[in-house]
């Protein structure tokens, strides 16, 4: 099948790739752009390990085709820390709270949590739990993840 040329912006950089029209955005990020931080846990939109934002909207990149990225602005886990490597408060809090065990779900949780805090800087525990219900973690039982997100939110509000 002939490939399609796509130009898009990923983490602030303009990038181009050739994609088979059957490939997902997740395939393109991982296989064509070497951005392997986004993970495939299911490929069916059920686990959230592939979470990215597209023009500011949280999406499962396994459910979007690579060709649909044309002209969009995509943010992935690789773009979450500052240019100088300074961690986003969520990243720092995930480490401090031991909110990861195997860490495979972590990029998806971080991207989804960041999207939450941009919409709702002061979420309740229940709001955090429902927002993150699309992200599966099999290791932690979610307790420390929820705490890390609440704590990061507090810090970002200047309430910590």
């Amino acid at each position, binding site marked *: 099948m002939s490939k399609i040329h796509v130009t898009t912006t990923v983490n602030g950089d303009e990038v181009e790739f050739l994609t088979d029209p059957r490939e997902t955005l997740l395939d393109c990020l*991982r296989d064509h752009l070497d951005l392997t*931080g*986004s993970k495939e846990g299911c*490929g069916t939109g059920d686990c959230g390990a592939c979470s990215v934002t597209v023009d500011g909207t949280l999406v499962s990149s396994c459910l979007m085709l690579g060709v649909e990225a044309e002209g969009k602005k995509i943010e992935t*886990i690789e773009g979450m820390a500052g240019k100088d490597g300074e961690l986003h408060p969520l990243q720092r809090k995930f*480490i401090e709270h*031991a909110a990861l*065990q195997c860490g495979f779900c972590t990029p998806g949780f971080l991207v989804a949590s960041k999207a939450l805090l941009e919409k709702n800087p002061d979420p309740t525990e229940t709001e955090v739990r429902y927002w993150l219900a699309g992200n599966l*973690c099999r290791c932690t039982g979610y307790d420390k993840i*929820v705490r890390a997100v609440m704590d990061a939110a507090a810090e970002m509000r200047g309430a910590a």
Partner: protein
Amino acid sequence: MTKNGSSEFRLVGTRPNRPDGLDKVTGRARYGADASMPGMLHGAVVRSPHAHARIVKIDTSKAEALPGVKGVVTRADFPTGLTGEDWDLQENTMAGEKALYDGHAVAAVAATSPLLAQEAARLIEVEYEVLPHVIDVDDAIKPDAPAIRPGAADHSVPEGSPPNVVRYLEFGHGDIEAGFAEADLVMENTYKTEATHQGYIEPHACVGQLGADGKGEMWVCTQGQWYIRRMCAAVLGIEAAQLRVTPSEIGGGFGGKTTIFMEPLSLALSRKAGGKPVKIVMSRSEVLRATGPTASASMDVKIGMKKDGTITAGYANFRMQGGAFPGAPVDMALYCAFAGYKLANVKHVGYDVLANRPKCAAYRAPGSPMGAFAVESLVDEMARKLGLDPLDVRLKNAVREGDKASYGPTFGSIGLVETLEAAKAHPNLKAPLGPNQGRGVACGYWFNHGGETSVSMAIGEDGTATVSVGTPDIGGGRASIALMVAETLGIDYDDVRVNVVETGALGVNEPTHGSRATFASGKAAVESTNQAIKEMCRRAAAEWGIDPEAVEWVNGAAQPTSSNAGKFAPMTIKEIAAKMGSTGGPISGHYEGLPSGVGASFGTHVVDVEVDPETGRTTILRYLVVQDAGRAIHPAYVEGQYQGGAVQGIGWALNEAYIYGEDGRLQNPIFLDYRVPVASDLPMIDTVIVEVPNPGHPYGVRGVGETGITPPLPAIANAIEHATGQRIRHLPISPPKLLKAIKSAAPSGPTLQAAE
């Protein structure tokens, strides 16, 4: 850093950031599917759509003709003549004469892209003769069930047993009939649990390369790189030493990544394709259909109890299926079933039964959750009948140090009583319960494990330390080992780097299984460190011109003792390390062996639930895990093991199950339908770390990974009975099942007991 409990240590018991944290929050950590190699091909696997079928013919010609296809393999490409477990592994890797379950691999193909490989896989034509199949364990054990593998039974199976029974065991002590005669109440019930999957979020993935010279390499997500090496070598008929296996970061395993599935296929395809590396990444549905779920179980339990709660006898008869291969953990289930109870009279009978399902793999405390579900449910039913407090009944019968275990050995130091007492004292037990709410308690057990262990550590020229371990880090193992080595050496936590290394770097290591990484690799790392310390003391003694025996290691420095005390200034690790090139060369320490002194771990869980009488849905209101850690090296990761184990158990109790159609096909092979708990299903999971140090470990570690999945199954069933009056003896306690029970018990509408 906050300290937990005792402060006898400088670092052990603190909560520093984990060494791999930065890589894992930035997306840099490399997991199974994140590696590529030059010239790499992609593999896809053709799988049987039938639960049981003879393979009549496989036509690969169309696939091979597709441009970009570089190799196709079937069972014909594997050596013949394997026996025992090796044959089982080979047969599970690639079906031979028959496909034994829905999802069983029958062929594989390598091509220049993943899409092309999938296209080629669809072009492989397999002709099947469909055979009668059997799925449920109670059906599979019937004398007239379809025989799955005639001749697979081992010597333990009595003559004339049904055709799918492949292993039989029977053990116990005392006289159960006499015990039942002493009891005031004897009850007997049957309990069932369904197969569940470990559900690690990372699907299996590997890149394998194998040349015509028999030399190969593999990058793979696994709990045990040496197991991968040994098993792949056996299945492919190559030399283990010629295969170098490097473990990736691992996205969860829970026992399910201690064996091989598609790994030998990537090597076989690579050999076929002229030695080019071949990457295979499973899809989620392949993971659910064709990798190890746990076993399903059907269990009879009979218990005799006196009015005061004393248990006079216990009997367990368990039937378990672990797929189309021997290996259901019926032995472990029976060993653990009554492990918490001091019993004069106990008898166990077990059957390992074949069914047309995927080969089961270990899943967190394999067998123990099933056994606990049966026994801890019945103990609760009896306590309720006798009007006794369920925690008191357990305390009354609890095993203590020196007691003979239900499965034979004598317990060393254990902390069951301490967990029960800590649970009793916890504020959750005083929380008031409203209408439709109930409270359940249960205990659980896991042996823990030592196992083959090889560790190496070396002092750097700057006085820092590198530790090489063979146990992949699933939940913070590197952090706990670094803490223990830094504590022992008297240096900073950040001055120790722990690496999980490939098969060429150490002697054979068993996987990270049996809750052994912090116990066994940790103990080995401490012993290696002590060797290096001894050598550093020797170097200092040589410089001072005194007897090495007269030097001790204090706070990261060698210092003279006894008559020489104070004569020389302490020589720090940095000073000794800086000079090592001229004082005798590298300074290192090693451990090879089977660490003894394993400490078993008991836990007690308390759960509060609310049942919606309209829908039958159960909500977890409060959850408490109390477990004996021996000593928590890094308490945050101990809590994490408790919480994660409990939530897997909650999923098993309420939602998760393999659902098969009449046709023997798995009907829920995606996460949408195989529903694991999500954040909005749960409250915070409260934890209490009980520390009854294990005398067999330098820092008292027991191992904490597994026990926590065991109590939730019965604890939740017990809480649901408390809330609704309905005793459900078949998991999962899904909303429709519970609703039906509530409705049929009260035709005029549910009358739920308000708990006290």
